[in-house]
């Protein structure tokens, strides 16, 4: 693996990737430090300014209840980014753990664990998730605020199988390399070899896969929230903002800003993540270099 510095400087040299990283940094920092930012954010409803077009006072316009859209997008950023990160982390832990156990074990165990993944992959999880979301609706868990946490885990649980497959495949290759065999010959236990020798060598692959899982989780969050089954009011995410926009969509008064700004924010983030993932893959994956 190339030193981190070389990879980073190569990434920063490409202007598109640089802009993508810049955008992602802005979005993430906003999500993290929103309460500390010197911005005047108002979340008050004010019927006198309902559905106002973008102006000096309200940069992105106002929604049907007169709330400032710019403030709402910033607030939505927190939850959307949290969903992306939490979902990717869940997928990371489940996928890497499962992949190591499957790829590092006996052929028999590997076979059955992979058949289980095949079965899970053949299930249309999106529809099951909608079922789970409908079960969670209005339940005691959701009322206590735990709903959002469950939601994060669900998002990650959908996308862990590709990670498990990739890690499992690489593990099976790596544990038969000379250095792994040498360690076995020296009497190092298999678990330790997997954890201390194989796992660090998997890092490039894992980083690339995680970068590409985050946009998928973001998309899925937006999808569920748009249908009204994801993040629940009063919490805001980029998906619920789009849902609000479509609710007031009519030909008499076109509130185009309500659709445009949340969509563009999400779209830019998705494009930036996909671009960064592709670039990382080019630099980190030995097969692609």
């Amino acid at each position, binding site marked *: 693996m190339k030193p981190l510095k070389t990879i980073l400087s190569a990434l920063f040299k490409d202007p598109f990737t640089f802009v993508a990283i810049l955008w992602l940094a802005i979005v993430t920092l906003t999500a993290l430090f929103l309460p500390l930012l010197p911005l005047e954010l108002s979340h008050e409803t004010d019927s006198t300014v309902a559905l106002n077009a973008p102006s000096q006072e309200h940069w992105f316009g106002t929604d049907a209840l007169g709330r400032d859209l710019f403030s709402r997008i910033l607030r939505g950023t927190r939850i959307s980014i949290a969903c992306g990160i939490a979902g990717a982390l869940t997928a990371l832990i489940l996928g890497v753990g499962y992949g190591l156990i499957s790829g590092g074990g006996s052929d028999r165990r590997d076979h059955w664990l992979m058949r289980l993944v095949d079965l899970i992959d053949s299930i249309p999880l999106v529809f099951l998730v909608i079922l789970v979301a409908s079960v969670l609706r209005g339940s005691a868990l959701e009322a206590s605020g735990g709903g959002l946490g469950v939601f994060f885990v669900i998002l990650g649980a959908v996308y862990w199988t590709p990670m498990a497959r990739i890690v499992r495949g690489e593990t099976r290759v790596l544990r038969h390399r000379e250095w792994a065999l040498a360690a076995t010959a020296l009497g190092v236990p298999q678990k330790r070899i997997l954890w201390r020798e194989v796992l660090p060598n998997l890092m490039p692959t894992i980083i690339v896969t995680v970068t590409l899982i985050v946009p998928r989780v973001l998309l899925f969050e937006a999808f569920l929230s748009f249908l009204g089954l994801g993040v629940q009011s009063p919490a805001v995410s980029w998906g619920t903002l789009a849902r609000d926009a479509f609710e007031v969509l009519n030909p008499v008064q076109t509130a185009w800003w309500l659709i445009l700004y949340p*969509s563009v924010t999400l779209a830019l983030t998705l494009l930036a993540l996909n671009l960064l993932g592709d670039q990382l893959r080019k630099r980190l994956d030995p097969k692609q270099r």
Partner: protein
Amino acid sequence: MIQLIVRRSVASLITIWAVFTISFLVIRSAPGGPFDAERDPPEAVKAAIEARYQLDAPLWQQYLNQGWSWLTLNPGPSLRQPDHDVATILAAGIPASFLLGTLALLLGIILGTILGVIAAWQQDRWPDRVITLFASMGISLPLYVIAGLLILLFAFHLPWLPPAGWTAASSAVLPIICLALAPAAQVARLLRSGLIEASQEDYARTARSKGRGVVGTLLFHCLRPASIPVTSTLGPTAAAMLTGSLVIEQIFAIPGVGMHFIQGAMNRDYPLVLGAVLLYTILLQILTLLGDLLMGWLDPRARVEE
């Protein structure tokens, strides 16, 4: 061939059974019953309701009963519309969803093929770059963003098409286009790279040296091998379109299966939701099997391996 169909059908049945079992367990493990939102009914009424929906039987008996009633296509009434059978409600949504899905898939394949061939033919020139950009946007953007922009443009800014509804033929145009864009982008991208790869093979060079033009070589010699990767993603593409149809039916107010599904999920109408989940699962299994059969026809190597 027959062996393949049998084996895949058995795998599909296992999947469908797994989906049913997981759904059943999820619904039954829900904290509180589906009637908790109502005002506390008298004990007798509650018992009568539970008896009607068999909520008072032991769990394994409920599981067997439900399994049997779904197998015989007689799943019983919906929770929120007690006068209507779940099967009837879903069946009423099928024509609209079927029409929307089939036309969108057809349009997606045709559009994707045309764009893919143009991109491969004009490789690294501006038409290729435009198509590649379009394809990566079509894959990475959420459907509601695309639908929202198209509605703003073609329904409000230029009042050519109705923004919602499912009455006139013109009202079907926007939803079909929206739903077709993602598969078109997917097909175009895969076909482009497949065609470029195939055009460097020996048989393509032979065709060129025989005097066949560039486009002719692509269409008559490279298209068939290049369409193998496209076919192999038919299953995931179909799955993506089914999810997409949920959003599209919501946005354009189309009375299809997806609309009933989401409505049921919002109302916690479990029998209806379970029915829709099973319907989508079965449909997806059939489409995946069709994709595999098509692939065996396109690529003899896939046949031998199976």
